[in-house]
């Protein structure tokens, strides 16, 4: 009856993994920087920046998608410029990466910031009096001690990125084999009445996410913590 449909299952799965992986990487670097700069900062400006960094968590993904189109769309602020040098992000898998990056940013940012704030400030000050630059304080003291929390946020973000739907649909569309991620393929199959395919995809998506979260739990519980 149904043979293993490579295009129907494997392609969206691999695309989802690739999009989520790249988005996690980009988000990780940006969120880590933001978290370190904003940790333990008080005042109206840091509070405002913090709110902006958290916003993607509470805004509907479609609203994010709309903002992103304003930004990187053909007539967008950055999109116009990119268009001139021959880059078009709309309806491309790179566009899906951008959508996922923004959506998962707060997950990494929030957990990284909390983890940095958990680090005993005496340790960072001790490093400073021992001659360490701020960069070295970050890389040799703060990050190793906050790593567990940062990593937990990272895994959560990757899993969330796997399932990104709303913003991705608006920016990258739903082109099978090109921008159709796992979440989009499920919706597509379900709408088309292809229930068998939908179920298969649902099971795969669930399994992948459960495995990811279990791996994260396993790794963080084994992480060296003294």
């Amino acid at each position: 009856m149904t043979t293993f449909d490579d295009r129907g299952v494997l392609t969206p799965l691999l695309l989802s993994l690739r999009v989520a992986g790249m988005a996690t990487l980009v988000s990780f670097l940006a969120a880590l920087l933001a978290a370190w700069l904003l940790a333990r900062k008080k005042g109206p400006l840091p509070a405002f920046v913090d709110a902006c960094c958290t916003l993607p968590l509470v805004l509907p993904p479609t609203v994010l998608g709309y903002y992103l189109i304003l930004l990187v769309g053909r007539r967008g602020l950055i999109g116009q410029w990119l268009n001139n040098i021959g880059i078009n992000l709309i309806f491309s898998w790179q566009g899906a990466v951008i959508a996922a990056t923004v959506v998962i940013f707060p997950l990494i940012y929030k957990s990284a910031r909390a983890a940095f704030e958990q680090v005993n400030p005496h340790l960072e000050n001790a490093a400073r009096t021992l001659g360490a630059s701020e960069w070295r304080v970050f890389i040799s003291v703060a990050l190793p001690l906050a790593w567990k929390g940062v990593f937990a946020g990272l895994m959560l973000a990757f899993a969330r990125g796997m399932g990104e739907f709303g913003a991705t649909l608006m920016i990258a569309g739903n082109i099978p084999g090109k921008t159709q991620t796992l979440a989009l393929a499920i919706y597509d199959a379900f709408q088309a009445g292809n229930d068998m395919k939908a179920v298969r995809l649902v099971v795969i998506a669930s399994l992948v996410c459960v495995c990811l979260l279990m791996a994260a739990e396993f790794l963080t519980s084994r992480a060296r913590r003294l």
Partner: protein
Amino acid sequence: MISLRLHKFFHTGDRPFCLDVAYAISPDQKVTVLFGPSGSGKSLTLHCLAGLMRPDAGRVCLGERVLYDADADIFVPARRRRVGYMFQDYALFPHLNVLQNVAYPRTGCIPSRVNAAERDKACVLLERFGIGHLARQMPGRLSGGQRQRAALARALNADPELLLLDEPFSALDTLLREKLRDELLTMFSRLTMPVVIITHDPDDVDVFADNLILYDNGQARSVAEYRSLRQQFATAGQCLRALPLHLPRAPADNHPKELA
């Protein structure tokens, strides 16, 4: 010669706090003790000396070097001050072993990579402090006294020109305190740099103070003649209690003010 004039105002909770101190420590005064109740501004002073906090106004000089001058807009960051700081909880890095902790001032971004020369240097320091056999231990497994020695060895490995100790004995039990007090005193005699200790234990004042600075509610005053004054009392506690707790406003100049 250390001279400092500090002014710092802020709110702790809903209570305003104002640190306003000015005094000098002459080169022949090796160990200076800052004595006073909790929350009187002692730790704040050390933070300002180490460059971990920026005062609102004033001036800090260590020898010929100006570390902070509000008028000239000079603020040397902590990493360039060469001021060693031993924290109350010793602040050993929990993810590094004792040797890596001690070598930290001389390693790069990956402090677990210690080259042979620095390893030898750190080992010599550890031996000097009698904890050479603990080089590979993690700080979490050390006793309070061992932690103190490791923290001190680490601070000295950065070649400081001034050593600050924030309540060095508060994390220890009483018996150990007695022992380590003597140990620290012997060690100080071998050091070349001046030392500033914070304490609220009168016995520490007796043992260490070449120079005594009394702190109260954000103000401070040098007590130049503590040694002669001390002879009139049976215990350090009695002597310190006899000194007036409420200090007059800090004088505008930074000469030590003598008791009437």
